[in-house]
């Protein structure tokens, strides 16, 4: 419990400082809304509808690929800490694990998952 106390303090203090920063203008700033000011900025043109529309699926692909490889990285951490204890067996196991994911990466790159449209 005592270990996590400083973390609680830093979370509380950072939340206070950042919260104050984000909400200071509500109190200190003026408030004069107008229909034109409320428009989304599109270089001076009237906004062409809501921005909450479809966008390139490439970003979604990147997110999925990230998920796979980030889980790989996370799973490698415990092995990395105990690498000296696991020795050759651990090395071979981790090697197989990484090799399988390397095949996936090469496949994704070959299929053009990361290329621009």
């Amino acid at each position, binding site marked *: 419990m005592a270990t996590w106390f400083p973390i609680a303090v830093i979370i509380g203090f*950072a939340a206070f400082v950042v919260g104050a920063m984000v909400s200071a203008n509500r109190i200190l700033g003026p408030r004069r809304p107008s229909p034109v000011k409320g428009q989304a900025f599109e270089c001076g043109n009237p906004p062409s509808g809501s921005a909450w529309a479809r966008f390139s699926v490439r970003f979604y692909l990147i997110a999925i690929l990230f998920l796979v490889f980030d889980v790989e990285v996370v799973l490698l951490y415990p092995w990395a800490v105990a690498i000296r204890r696991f020795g050759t067996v651990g090395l071979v196991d981790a090697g197989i694990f990484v090799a399988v994911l390397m095949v996936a990466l090469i496949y994704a790159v070959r299929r053009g998952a990361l290329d621009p449209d």
Partner: protein
Amino acid sequence: MLTDLLIDAAKAIVAVLLVLNLATVLLWFERKGSALIQDRVGANRAAIFGIGRRLGVPNLGVTNTFVADPLKMFTKEDFVPDQADRFLHTLAPFLSLFPVLVTFAVVPFGDRLIVGSRVIDLQVCQLDVGVLYLLAVLGIGIYGAALGGWASNNRWALLGGVRASAQMISYELAMGLAIIAVVMTFGTLDLQEICRRQGGAWFGWLPKWGIIYQPLAFLLLLTAGIAESKRIPFDMPEGESELIAGYFTEYSGGKQAAFMLTDFAEVVLVSALVATFFFGGWQVPYLYPEGFRLPGIGSVLLPNLVVAVLGVLAFGLKVVFFCWLQILVRWTLPRFRYDQLMYLGWKILLPLGLINLAATAVVIVAVAS
């Protein structure tokens, strides 16, 4: 017991304040530094009743950055577009800056300080899972950029937001892989312990810093770190000439300030991490807990207080050096194109990170058995 808790709380608060202040100083440094690099004068207008000029002090833009800008920022209208999601619009800058400040909890800024019978560890919180905490908390920052772009309901902001999140997750892989290699080398996830194991010297003169074990991981972490902070050459998410200001196009006042400070706080964080993992953190070459031991010259005994202060100073110096390096990079290189960014992240840094990981693992296992 109470004193211990108070010391812990003081360390946490001082760490956050130090980072915020260093971030602001970097903002000033970037203004005047960029002016120096580009042969301009830079900020030199704002002054308080012309006091500096009357005293004959050159105007270094200090009033601009530390008085005029904050005053102006916090007295602006808190502007939210009509079509935006008001709650997420406020949450986004919070989620952007907050995690960066909280990560500093595990960054050690000095060795032990002994006051009477009390041993104070100069780190906000010594966690056995320090590196995992770091990566976990840092990951939250992605929501800040992504939500900021989404909540504004502006096309530029949305594009900036998705670009920022794609970029940050791509480079987080390279960052994670670089740190794994370091973790393997030192065999611990505790950042303070990583610093301690970089003490000492080979052949009596070469400091056992991480850069000597892991030069490639250093380059990977620095590159990925600059990409994470979304600064030039990796600033597609906020590239002015194409996306106005990217995900914070629709932000003003303090929220905008929070996004801006995030950039600089991340610069400080990347510098602190690079210093901790590869340059010995608070280690001073040839300085041991009992004093200096210079190769071929002799040794000087020093009290604990001096050693601890020297360590904190060394850490500060290393952090400032890497901040300066990142600002130099920002004002020297042109912006990448989006496909070049993805190419670098996925097809160069990721494989390089895996190769580095494999090589490190093989060497460590070979040496250990």
